[in-house]
């Protein structure tokens, strides 16, 4: 059974049609890269997978469960097992790093404050962020904010992670740190979709890549398949000759 399956997905905002007919599936434990030009609607697909956007037509299945028409209340159990890593981290700026990480644990678990504190400490240490518990998000660098955002997303140990440009605007050191973390999570059996423009990261972590142009999937394949398609639209996109 596919962990994620999207069938005949259509989405429009007002008069603008963003997606005409998207079909994709991601197997358990696989990492799929969604690539395409800016404004091609990659993030819209990602947001729809967790119910932040509603499909106009089509079907979205997560671990065999049709979530297309779920309301906010019905989506809560899904959002405990599917994590979303926002492009800018989307940390709560009125809360410290520790409070940001504690947020899902307080809401969805019955862990004691001591256990929550220990879990946060361990998670931050895994991300090279030890000692940053009391710091407010505004005082963190962009790379640290993204890492805290990723730490908050995985603290509930989700089965599926949706990454929205996790390495955008980062320096090589922070990019490598994020790549390592994505690979580590993948090794642990986490299914993921990665929206990115950062092709080295996509090649480093994705099993398969999907290119979206004008609301359609125009190319799809593994790294080897893509490298063998000389002159294809995917190659042109990667080399910057087309988008």
């Amino acid at each position, binding site marked *: 059974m596919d962990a994620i399956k999207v069938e005949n997905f259509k989405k429009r905002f007002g008069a603008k049609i963003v997606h005409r007919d998207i079909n994709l599936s991601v197997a358990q434990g696989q990492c799929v890269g969604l690539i395409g030009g800016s404004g091609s609607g990659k993030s819209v697909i990602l947001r729809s997978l967790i119910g932040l956007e509603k499909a106009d037509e089509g079907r979205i299945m997560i671990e065999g469960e049709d979530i297309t028409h779920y309301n906010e209340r019905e989506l809560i159990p899904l959002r405990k097992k599917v994590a*979303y890593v926002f492009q800018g981290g989307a940390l709560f700026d009125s809360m410290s790093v520790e409070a940001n990480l504690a947020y899902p644990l307080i809401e969805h678990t019955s862990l004691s404050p001591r256990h929550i504190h220990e879990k946060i400490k361990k998670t931050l240490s895994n991300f090279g962020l030890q000692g940053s518990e009391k710091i407010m998000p505004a005082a963190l660098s962009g790379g640290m904010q993204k890492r805290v955002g990723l730490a908050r997303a995985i603290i509930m140990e989700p089965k599926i992670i949706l990454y929205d440009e996790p390495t955008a605007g980062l320096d090589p050191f922070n990019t490598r740190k994020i790549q390592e973390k994505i690979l580590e999570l993948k090794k642990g059996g986490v299914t993921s979709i990665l929206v990115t423009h950062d092709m080295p990261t996509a090649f480093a972590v994705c099993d398969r890549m999907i290119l979206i142009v004008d609301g359609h999937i125009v190319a799809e394949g593994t790294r080897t398949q893509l490298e063998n398609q000389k002159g294809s639209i995917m190659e042109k996109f990667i080399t910057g000759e087309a988008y």
Partner: protein
Amino acid sequence: MINGITNTVGSLIIRFLSFVGGVTYLAQEMWSHLWRRPFYPALIVEQMYQIGVRSLSLVSATAFSTGAVMALQFGFGLERFGGKYYVPKVVALSLVRELGPVFTSLMLAGRIGAGITAEIGSMNVTQQIDAIRALGTSPIKKIVIPRVLGCLIVLPLLTVIANFIGILASLFICQAELGLDPLFFYQKVVYTVVLTDFVVGVAKTLFFAAFISLVGCYYGMRTVGGTQGVGIATTKSVVTSSILIVTSDFALTKLFWIFEKWTQ
């Protein structure tokens, strides 16, 4: 020319209906979430502090100034007709029934309405509202309910304080400028202002509190377009809630007046 006018009027009507529909939908969502677990009493208490305690100085200054100015104006005006002894009655009634609730609400629309919209708007454009949803929690419960309930609880209390300070200010002015005896002032106020006057004034503030908080949340939740969008939403929120307070005041006054007549 006619087409242009029709388009403008049509667009205004659509925007108005969209606003009414949006706020009504938000109120209905809030109502349905209000009775479901989990509850966040700590967030409500925090908002009560933010809205109430931190607005106290502004509300006190406004009430003191209003009471003092009214005592002066009525004092000098009525003195010409030998009616300065009516000043305590007129000032106390005006403050308790009308000016206390309206001025306090207008001050809060500026301070709290703007604050609510700017805060939620900033959260919206930085995807923090999406993050609340993505983490399996409800922005209605976490953001809207604490602010609306906080405002509904605190605004009537602030109005009571404002009424008291306003009457106290007019007492000082009546004694210092008009030479009225403080005991005489006290007796006239106590004799004139009955419980119904007090209740009518405070009851109005429940409507005003709902306007300020719901409109603030509505515009905050709809904010788009970065920091500029936050500024635009904040301005809209303050203007809309102020207009709602001023215009609904007449309707509410008339409504309560009919109700008072009916119950007598």
